[in-house]
């Protein structure tokens, strides 16, 4: 799409940008004129489901997000939780479902890359990762290819970057045949007084671009992530984003070094619709305007238009506002790590988002409205019809218990996941106390004698389908128990809500029910949700995935010498069953 900026805005064009007629009307009302092509692209990126949470926001607001240890709840790149002694844990989970279905290796790899960036953007060094994966039936013709690609992609990125993978999930069900789920979690450690946010401060300051060059990768990707699949998707492939974990590792080290110098005022990673979302967020949060000059953006392809640059999803890029007097120090660090960087704009006081290229202004939009006045929907929702409980009396006992047991543990969903996690580096950094295979992964807190953190990711989608409210509660409770089973105190959680098309009342009903259940369980257990992600429209030919609200939690162990572990059992130990 190298169309000129003056391209007339037709109904088709509006529709292909995923904007509904009433949403387009809202744009016209806001700016009082027809948008340019670049502006249309910017609106489509900011207002799609993926970035604006327009279908889920109303319900997400009901989740408990506060607590005595919560330093930063939802709304930033990741949540921040106090773990004492001036240390904080920074964590989030995010989906990369659609891209992983189209190109499993790169889709999963860039999913891991994205979540790691969310964590180190805030000034935290990543110390643990998890991945919750859901695939179609084991005998479906695409499954094998998807599984091997996704697992290799998760490992390929995380192993090279150097973060231990300490947990996750793998589940198979025919309902994921056309829409697999790849949910990636990352956690990092930082100091409470050295957390970095995306809010820009100060007028006339340089906006700096750092990291990989911009290409045409994934132009239109954010819009795709919010659209249903159909068979034609095979042809509609956008340029796939390729992950470069080496550049990401350099970016991590450069950012952490730079943050130490005091040069960073605001920082934001470039995720979906990179330049657009990051610049608008920095400006809107800081009550400032942003002016970008695209001639200065490092590009790796010829003749890129403003539209393409604003919507590019090239990976391993950051945008920041720096103190001008620290520029030399900053550029020495970027050069040491071999990263491209450029001053691509400045902060202004007019609350406008302006984009210039080759001397022409191709976008001039009100920045606050772009960020804050995205449409928000109260979509109709239908409660899920109750399914009567199965009467145990009607199920015949197995004639051979040994055989039944073998069937259970030999089943694709019951079998050991060792074949997956042995492809992940689980020991790097030298702090892993419990590797995958137990209830929760445990990592000790570097620099502290006895403290450790426990991580677990859980959900049972068929429970959620049977009863979204109870299933939502159950996912939280299981995560909480898994953390608790190591002896850790569960602190807080992040959620990744994967559902079908929210425009269908029965799907919206699942989402609403699950959020209510999650909210109630988190409230009762004092286990606040501090970050999260929503992935909707996971449907193919009208068939939705099982409702899958993945919950990932973090717990604190004051003394890991007293940790409980699953592999500490010995011959002759007594087994107890606790609970009812």
């Amino acid at each position, binding site marked *: 799409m190298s169309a000129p900026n003056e391209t007339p805005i037709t109904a088709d064009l509006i529709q292909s940008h995923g904007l509904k007629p009433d949403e387009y009307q809202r744009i016209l009302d806001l700016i009082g004129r027809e948008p340019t092509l670049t502006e249309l692209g910017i609106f489509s990126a900011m207002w799609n489901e993926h970035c604006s949470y327009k279908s889920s926001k109303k319900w997400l607001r009901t989740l408990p997000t506060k607590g005595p240890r919560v330093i930063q709840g939802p709304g930033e790149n990741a949540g921040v939780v106090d773990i004492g002694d001036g240390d904080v844990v920074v964590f989030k989970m995010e989906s990369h479902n659609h891209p992983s279905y189209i190109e499993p290796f790169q889709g999963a790899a860039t999913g891991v890359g994205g979540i790691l960036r969310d964590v180190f953007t805030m000034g935290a060094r990543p110390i643990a990762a998890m991945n919750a994966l859901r695939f179609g039936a084991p005998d479906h013709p695409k499954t094998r290819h998807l599984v091997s690609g996704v697992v290799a992609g998760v490992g390929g990125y995380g192993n090279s970057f150097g973060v231990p993978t300490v947990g996750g999930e793998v589940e198979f069900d025919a309902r994921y045949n056309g829409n697999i789920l790849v949910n990636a979690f990352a956690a990092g450690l930082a100091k409470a007084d050295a957390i970095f946010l995306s809010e820009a401060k100060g007028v006339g300051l340089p906006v700096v671009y750092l990291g990989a060059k911009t290409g045409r990768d994934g132009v239109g990707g954010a819009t795709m992530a919010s659209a249903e699949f159909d068979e034609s998707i095979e042809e509609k492939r956008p340029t796939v984003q390729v992950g470069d974990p080496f550049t990401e*590792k*350099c970016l991590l080290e450069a950012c952490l070094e730079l943050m130490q110098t005091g040069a960073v005022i605001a920082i934001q990673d470039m995720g979906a619709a990179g330049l657009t979302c990051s610049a608008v967020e920095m400006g809107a949060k800081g009550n400032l305007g942003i002016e970008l000059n695209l001639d200065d953006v490092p590009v790796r392809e010829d003749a890129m238009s403003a539209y393409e640059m604003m919507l590019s999803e090239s990976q391993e890029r950051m945008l920041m506002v720096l103190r001008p007097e620290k520029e030399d120090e900053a550029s020495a660090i970027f050069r040491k790590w071999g990263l491209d960087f450029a001053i691509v704009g400045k902060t202004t006081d007019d609350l406008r988002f302006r984009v210039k290229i080759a001397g022409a202004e191709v976008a001039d939009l009100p920045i606050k409205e772009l960020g804050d006045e995205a449409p928000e929907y109260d979509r109709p929702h239908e409660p899920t019809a109750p399914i009567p409980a199965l009467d145990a009396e009607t199920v015949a006992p197995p004639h051979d218990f040994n055989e039944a047991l073998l069937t259970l543990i030999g089943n694709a969903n019951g079998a050991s996941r060792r074949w997956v996690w042995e*492809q992940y580096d689980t020991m*790097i950094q030298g702090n892993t106390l419990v590797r995958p295979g137990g209830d929760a992964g445990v990592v000790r807190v570097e620099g502290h004698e006895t403290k450790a953190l426990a991580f677990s990711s859980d959900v049972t989608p068929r429970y959620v389908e049977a009863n979204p409210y109870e299933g939502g509660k159950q996912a939280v409770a299981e995560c909480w128990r898994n953390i608790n089973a190591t002896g850790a105190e569960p602190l807080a959680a992040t959620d990744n809500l994967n559902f079908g098309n929210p425009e269908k009342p029965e799907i919206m009903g699942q989402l609403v029910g699950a959020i209510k259940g999650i909210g109630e369980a988190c409230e009762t257990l004092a286990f606040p949700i501090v970050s999260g992600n929503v992935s909707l429209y996971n449907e193919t030919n009208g068939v939705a995935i099982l409702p899958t609200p993945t919950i990932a939690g973090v717990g604190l162990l004051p003394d890991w010498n007293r940790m409980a572990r699953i592999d500490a059992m010995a011959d002759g130990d007594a087994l107890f069953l606790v609970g009812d």
Partner: protein
Amino acid sequence: MKAAVILLPGLNRDRDMIAALTKISGTAPQTIWQTETSIPSDIDLVVIPGGFSYGDYLRCGAIAARMPVMQAVIERAKAGTRIMGVCNGFQILLEMGLLPGALMRNAHLNFVCKEVELEVTNAGTAFSNRYEKGQVIRCPVAHHDGNYFADGETLARLEGEERVVFRYANGGNPNGSVNDIAGIVNEGGNVLGMMPHPENLIEPAHGGDHGRGIFESALDLALA
């Protein structure tokens, strides 16, 4: 003895290595960035840690081996200074020509991370003298390209000169290495390359300390 750790972009077990050397010797090793052209003369042990230097792009260790600091490492190796390369460090030493052979993609093609058993096949080297010959130790591995290969002649020499220091034991070869080779030394015995990660098994938190002996040998630490 004074140790130094070489740093390159993309390495990621550098912090593990620095932590291990610090905990075992009581002093933090010096760090040397890739653009340095000399290694201070008071350094007795140079360690190239694991990771993915330059993303392992082209071939593992290939780009790293051509960075300025490596010329200094070659000079020190010739002068008899102890040089130790672990995982990516081993791959780099091969690309530099300080050790013979090559590390190919694992036979099963997957990255593998697990604990394996190693047999100490030569306990007489500067890196293995805290163990007994034939002793079996535990040690983690984490790599994608650890499948050691050398031509017949080179192998015969390595075996004949007892330069294979560690071998995967008890049928647990995780990558298809020829002759189960996990670690070798050069002719002079002062350069060690090994795929497994002894730095990740040195303290109770790691579930054991079988890796310590390698550092205690290399650093000539007084026997406790």
